[in-house]
């Protein structure tokens, strides 16, 4: 109950508070409109404050040995302040030839700026110095036009790892993230996007006093300029040597993807997606034609196949089938099925094995070694759809790996519901199991997720999250390191895993192994070939491998599109990258020095003198 007396007191206190608040506001208004009136009047009528942003230098991106993969270099940017433009059309006509842009493009950039018209709009980045000089000389001709020393992003190695490094682009009006200034650069793809925040630093600003006619009077006394704070350095786990070797092994003609990672930590050592593009095209000024050409290329160079390409895994998925069956006790290490005479009769259909003359009778390790389809048809049937789906999910084939590159796609694991929806409840038969058992059909994976699976098998079942970031070093030297993250444990016991690994070893080391030709002398290696049916053309070639087999330090998967057998097209790429890796880590002798070519040089210089040597 509230008593009347105290209510009056409280009412008075309330009135007092309201009066104080109103008085505070009134006092501030008096200060602005009476005491500081002249100052503000001058500001508004004669002078304008121009804020010239000073873009912070974007942090470097380096590989694991400190070699720069992306960095800023100084460049000139021409900007226009929309409110100071008198005749837009005339300005764009005169400016267009100078800065190598079309008039419509200039007008559009200025018109697109609906808010903050008093701030410079960057019209053309990375302008040639000669053009800057012309603009400087004829300053009066271009009211509202200014140039600044800015930065442009460069990618010293161009195409190398362009998908995962990504590129930067301008923040536009539609993006309303308030912490970003319109026209500033933002990471658009790859790690440039994932780590945009630490890379970008903090922009500074110059406060300039400018007269109504655009003349700069100097810095504003009441507001000191703010210097930009450069962005942090991003250290990647990528090894540039392996990356470049891997890229070169694909050459310009092959399409496909490759992922190499350290199975113990999840650090990605190399990641290739072919065909690719030159990231420098996107830094600074992007000519429209270039982009159109890339976007409409039917070989799809903009697609990052390592994280967004979905492929049937082919025989590389036989490890999943074998593992599930072993784990459930449906087979053991000695289980033999009906021998392979070139295929398997199921109902009224004959399912062929890749070897027409047949593999004869095999146990599970032998079946992995020779990749016998007949054996795995029967394992698949024994396993049943539900078990197969269950294990495929437990192995993580239906989820993203969580790598620190945006827009990763999850694989596709079909289940009974999915088949019912796709083919109608009675529209499919157990025959789908035969296909799934050997990795064909409706199971789709990304090269990265398959690599993660094999890295898990190699790493005693512990599946690490693949990642590229090793550390972030702020300008003041503070270092944040990435911690390895365990994503999951494979649903296989140590015994099952040892059987799978032995199978993989025999694939490479065994006499009948499908990848016997890719052996590395001195380094025991395990792996699995795959040949994936492709409805659009020739089969895709797969190979997944890891080495040294007892304590693997590298695991890699390669898919070469439409290249036929994995042993021929994919396994040699993995082998060559492994060799380079082990040469670097000291397990193999360093490569012989490249042949000296001064023979040719001498012959060219002194024709006929070669016999003197």
């Amino acid at each position, binding site marked *: 109950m509230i008593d009347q007396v105290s209510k009056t007191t409280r009412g008075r206190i*309330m009135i007092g508070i309201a009066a104080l608040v109103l008085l505070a506001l009134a006092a501030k208004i008096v200060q602005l*409109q009476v005491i500081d009136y002249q*100052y*503000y009047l001058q*500001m508004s009528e004669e002078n304008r404050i121009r804020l010239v942003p000073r873009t912070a230098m974007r942090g470097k991106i380096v590989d694991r040995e400190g070699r720069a993969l992306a960095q800023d270099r100084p460049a000139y940017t021409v900007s226009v302040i929309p409110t100071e433009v008198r005749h837009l059309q005339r300005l764009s006509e005169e400016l267009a030839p100078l800065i190598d842009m079309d008039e419509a493009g200039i007008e559009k950039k200025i018109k697109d700026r609906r808010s903050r018209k008093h701030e410079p709009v960057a019209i053309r980045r990375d302008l040639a110095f000669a053009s800057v000089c012309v603009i400087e000389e004829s300053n009066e001709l271009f009211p509202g036009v200014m140039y600044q020393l800015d930065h442009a992003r460069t990618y010293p190695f161009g195409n190398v790892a362009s998908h995962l490094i990504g590129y930067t682009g301008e923040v536009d009006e539609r993006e*309303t993230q308030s912490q970003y200034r319109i026209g500033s650069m933002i990471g658009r793809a790859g790690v440039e996007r994932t780590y945009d925040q630490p890379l970008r630093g903090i922009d500074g600003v110059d406060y300039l006093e400018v007269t109504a006619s655009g003349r700069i009077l100097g810095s504003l006394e009441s507001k000191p300029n703010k210097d930009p704070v450069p962005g942090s350095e991003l250290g990647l786990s990528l090894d540039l040597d392996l990356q470049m070797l891997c890229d070169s092994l694909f050459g310009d003609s092959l399409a496909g993807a490759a992922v190499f990672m350290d199975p113990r930590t999840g650090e990605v050592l190399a990641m290739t997606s072919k065909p690719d593009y030159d990231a420098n095209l996107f830094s600074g000024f992007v000519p429209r034609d270039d982009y159109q050409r890339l976007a409409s290329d039917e070989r799809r160079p903009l697609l990052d196949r390592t994280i967004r390409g979905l492929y049937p895994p082919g025989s590389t998925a036989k490890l999943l089938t074998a593992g599930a069956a072993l784990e459930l006790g449906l087979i053991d290490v000695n289980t033999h099925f009906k021998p392979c005479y070139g295929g398997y009769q199921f109902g009224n259909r004959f399912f062929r094995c890749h070897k027409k003359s047949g593999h004869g009778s095999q146990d599970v390790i032998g079946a992995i070694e020779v990749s016998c389809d007949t054996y795995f048809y029967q394992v698949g049937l024994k396993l049943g759809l539900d078990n197969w789906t269950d294990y495929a999910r437990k192995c993580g084939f239906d989820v993203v790996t969580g790598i620190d590159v945006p827009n990763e796609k999850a694989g596709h694991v079909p289940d009974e519901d999915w088949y019912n929806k796709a083919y109608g409840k009675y529209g499919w038969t157990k025959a789908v199991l035969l296909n799934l058992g050997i990795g064909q059909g409706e199971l789709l994976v990304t090269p990265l997720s398959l690599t993660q699976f094999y890295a898990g098998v190699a790493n005693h079942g512990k599946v690490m999250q693949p990642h590229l970031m090793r550390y972030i070093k702020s300008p003041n030297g503070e270092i944040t390191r990435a911690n390895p993250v365990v994503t999951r444990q494979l649903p296989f016991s140590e015994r099952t895993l040892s059987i799978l690994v032995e199978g993989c070893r025999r694939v490479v080391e065994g006499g009948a192994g499908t990848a016997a030709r890719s052996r590395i002398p001195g380094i025991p290696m395990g792996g699995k070939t795959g040949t994936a049916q492709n409805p659009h053309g020739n089969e895709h070639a797969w190979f997944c491998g890891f080495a040294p087999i007892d304590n693997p330090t590298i695991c890699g998967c390669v898919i070469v599109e439409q290249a036929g057998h994995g042993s021929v097209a994919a396994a040699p790429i993995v082998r060559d990258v492994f060799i380079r890796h082990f040469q670097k880590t000291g397990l193999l002798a360093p490569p012989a020095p490249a042949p000296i070519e001064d023979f040719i040089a001498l012959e060219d210089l002194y024709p006929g003198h070669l016999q003197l040597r």
Partner: protein
Amino acid sequence: MKIFTRDIFNSGNLPLFVAACLLTIISIVLVYSANHVATDPRLQDDWVKQIVWFLLGIVVFVATLKAPMRFHEAFAYVYYTVACVLLLGLILFGASKFGAQRWYHLGFFSFQPSEVAKVAFIFALARYLSYSRRPISHLRKIITACAMCGFITFLVLRQPDLGSAVIFTVVFSAMMFWAGLPARYLLLFYTPVISMIASSSMWAWIIFFALLIVAATLIVRRSPTFTILLVTLNLLVGALSSIAWNHLHDYQQMRIKIFLDPGQDPLGAGYQIIQSKVAIGSGGLLGKGYMAGSQNKLDYLPLRHTDFIFSVGAEEFGMLGAVVILGLFAFLFLRGIRTAMKARSEFMGLVAIGAVAALAFQMFVNIGMVVGLLPVAGVPLPFVSYGGSSLLVSWMLLGIIANVERNWMEY
């Protein structure tokens, strides 16, 4: 029509009604001036829309004024529940605009439930405080009231809408104080917030603690346990928040820093404040004249028809205009508080004080922001800023005060 006019003219509410009408007319005049040069043609019709909202506002006012208080009293908890459901729904289905989910899009109009939630909260808290027989300083009563406020504030914070969330806590404090809660409890409630902010700098924190101990010993001499509790709580909050601060990402820290000091972001929030101060300051005593504000016309003022509408008025009508607007608000608040004092029913008094607190605090935050006294927060100026939800709710709050005024003799 006669029913309408009788209620407005014969209940002692005419001055209140006229003051609010004047503020809304000023709003229409200023919205027209702010947007007549807008490059976006859709903005140019905003003043017409504001007239439509004004007319609807009067209907809302009369409806709130005529609806019996007993009815609101009976349905107070229902209002509260509905408001919470709407806010919850927003988290799930709301439309995202500028990175926040605050609106339901209803075709012709975006509806912002946190506005209506203010009214619902006022009714619900008033009902609880006036019905519960326990004395106000009973711990269970305080905790229940805090929970009512905390839950709805949490939902609003999730959107995120810090400005509205703060309004809920201010309305809550005003109503608790009105219900008789001793000032020292409010000290317990607010000082940790200051401690949290002050802990960002060692010196600020030390000075704050010195002041706190002096204040605590002077105000609450009688209870040393209370003083100990107050100081411990502040120490704890301050220490924990500096630990929490170090765990925030750089960009999260930056956002908070910018909120507290817009000067850190001179191209964003800081820029708006500089331009707003230039607009107001250059208005001088009598202003630059209607539709002659150069800051306004030259597009220097951001969001000038909504959050920065006061700056437009102060530039074009000078201090004279600013004082008229402040005066009209002062009149509204004085009438409102007097109404609350007069009301015999405890429920009605609480409702009236809640409504006054909501209006007064929004005015204070908005004008405080545009003159550079307070950090930038997207809080509209009641009756004056352009926008349907805000205007209708301002009229609804006024209707509540008028309703109490008309029925002040009821118990």
